[in-house]
């Protein structure tokens, strides 16, 4: 399926593949008849922070969910960490080990404590000894400023705390790429800040990050690139300064005028 398209010459890549964290070439996806991703070409360099914004239904969540194969693309190629995503389950699992994801609704495991949430994947996927996994988990729980909640259950935490646990849970797998799917959209205003702070601190460590968000302050502060999507396609891509002060596309200008008051 995805290998049928060899149309790689469409974008002559200047970068060597080991500098690239993610490479998307002519990616297309449909939900039934609905064309949700249209000719997506994107190269993400290692250590790059990319913010993706756009109106709802523009395909931005679908785009990053294709990177760890929570969604399947039907045409084009996606290469993550030098491994191409195909039907091969082993390769999908290999990629998922290196790609962390943070969801809008946290998706913590409610039947496990915070610490167990964080150690589960390292123990079962990375085959790490329990003690070592717990040390790493406590390290990252300190990074997200909630080591004291380690033995509570997710249901006992606030939304902001849960989202920070979700970030720590992903980091415990020590991934090379982090995907954020609207991480602050389900949070109360007072809790958005504590989550964004953690994300800024993570960006400062040099993590490769793809962030779908409406937090334009975050985009200005940490992004290397801002991508604006509409109707399943990339409409505009630029540095934050240029993107916010000098948007080119009419659609981008309209969008910015509506979200920046």
């Amino acid at each position, binding site marked *: 399926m995805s290998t049928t398209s060899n149309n790689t010459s469409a974008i002559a890549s200047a970068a060597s593949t080991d500098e690239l964290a993610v490479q998307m070439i002519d990616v297309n996806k449909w939900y039934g008849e609905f064309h949700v991703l249209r000719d997506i070409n994107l190269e993400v360099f290692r250590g790059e922070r990319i913010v993706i914004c756009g109106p709802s239904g523009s395909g931005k969540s679908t785009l990053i969910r294709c990177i*760890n*194969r*929570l969604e399947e693309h039907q045409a084009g190629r996606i290469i993550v960490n030098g491994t191409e995503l195909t039907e091969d389950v082993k390769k999908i*699992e*290999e990629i*998922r*080990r290196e*790609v*962390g*994801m943070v*969801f809008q*609704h946290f*998706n*913590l*495991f*409610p*039947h496990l404590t915070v610490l167990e949430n964080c150690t*589960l*994947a390292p123990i*079962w*996927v990375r085959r790490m000894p329990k003690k070592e996994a717990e040390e790493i988990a406590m390290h990252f729980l300190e990074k997200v400023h909630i080591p004291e909640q380690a033995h509570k*259950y997710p*249901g*006992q935490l606030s939304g902001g705390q849960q989202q920070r646990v*979700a970030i720590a*849970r*992903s980091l415990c*797998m020590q991934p090379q790429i982090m995907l954020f799917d609207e991480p602050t959209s389900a949070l109360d205003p007072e809790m958005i800040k504590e989550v964004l702070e953690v994300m800024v601190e993570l960006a400062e460590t040099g993590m490769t990050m793809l962030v779908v968000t409406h937090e334009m302050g975050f985009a200005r502060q940490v992004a290397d690139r801002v991508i604006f999507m509409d109707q399943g396609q990339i409409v505009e891509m630029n540095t934050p300064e240029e993107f916010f002060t000098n948007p080119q596309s009419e659609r981008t200008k309209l969008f910015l005028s509506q979200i920046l008051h």
Partner: protein
Amino acid sequence: MPATTKKLPWQPFHRNDMLPPKPPPPATTGVLGWLRRNLFSNWWNTLLTLLGLWFIWVVASSLIEFALIKAVWTGEDRNACLPKDGVEVGACWAYVNAKFNQFMDGFYPADQEWRYLTVYAVGIALLVPLLIPKVPWKGLNALLLFGAYPVLAYLLLYGAPSLGLPIVETTQWGGLLLTLVIASVGIVISLPLGIVFALGRRSQLPVIRFLSIAFIEFWRGVPLITVLFMSSVMLPLFLPEDVTLDKVVRPLVGVALFAAAYMAEVVRGGLQAIPKGQYEAAQALGLTYWQMMGLIILPQALKLVIPGIVNTFIGLFKDTSLVSIIGLFDLLGIVQTSLADAKWSTPTTAPTAYLFLALVYFFFCYGMSRYSLFMERHLHTGHKR
């Protein structure tokens, strides 16, 4: 103050010192307060309460009179339980006492009784610590109960001449022993099998999904009595002549598969209740399908459907009584057979026998029910408000 200034109907307000939390007001004023609020809050509720009490009194008093006050506790034969001076006696417990061994084990040889008593004792010794959450070594415990124990139970119950245990044919098994064997094997087989078929029914693979649906719908579409008749009468006709399946094993398999189909649908209900985000989070962490199911989805899904699972267990336990129809002497079968004994033929023998049966079945079913409620509370990890 100018007359035109409109006076606000409220006062501006602000607070710098936050209020400290206070304890709630005392909820009840003792037993009397509780009674008054819950049973006698107005004349209608008072009337209902009194009617309810009267009804309980009518039922309970006659039951107590029959089972305890007028009961006959000792005696050698029917003469003890016959009406005395034209006055009917109550429950004939002397009869239950005389038949007790038979009710417990059917026709199991008396000198071999220690064998199934040992099986009971080991079973309880392994089961009780597994059921109490605080006891450690759950893994080893489960391994012993589900791995080693069935082998031990088989060797002891059926026998192994090489170990000096004479064979006791399954046709000699009966009473509570047979009921417990069928019910426990059925329970132990039906839960994992039900989980497998529930997962199969939700599988992406068409063949597996079709086979699961076919299995579930077949067994759900057939009455258990039909299954039992099929297994005891039809199955031997289909099998080659030299293949003989044990008379107890046949309905045992039927009961287990029947319960597994119901279990599969119960578990499927639980699987459907788990949000998609749980699957996605597990996948995003790189868990394999079986890790995701075993560590994330099933623990939550099974916890949700504990009431349904226990419902199926209780149903299965009571359904074992249907094997008496195909000539097995389970607890119900053996009690009914004993009623034909002329030595104990009295007007109250049958009511006593059924009262005894009800008590035994109730003991086991109510026990399962209470334990499931305890487990639900124990596994609750959300915010308790």
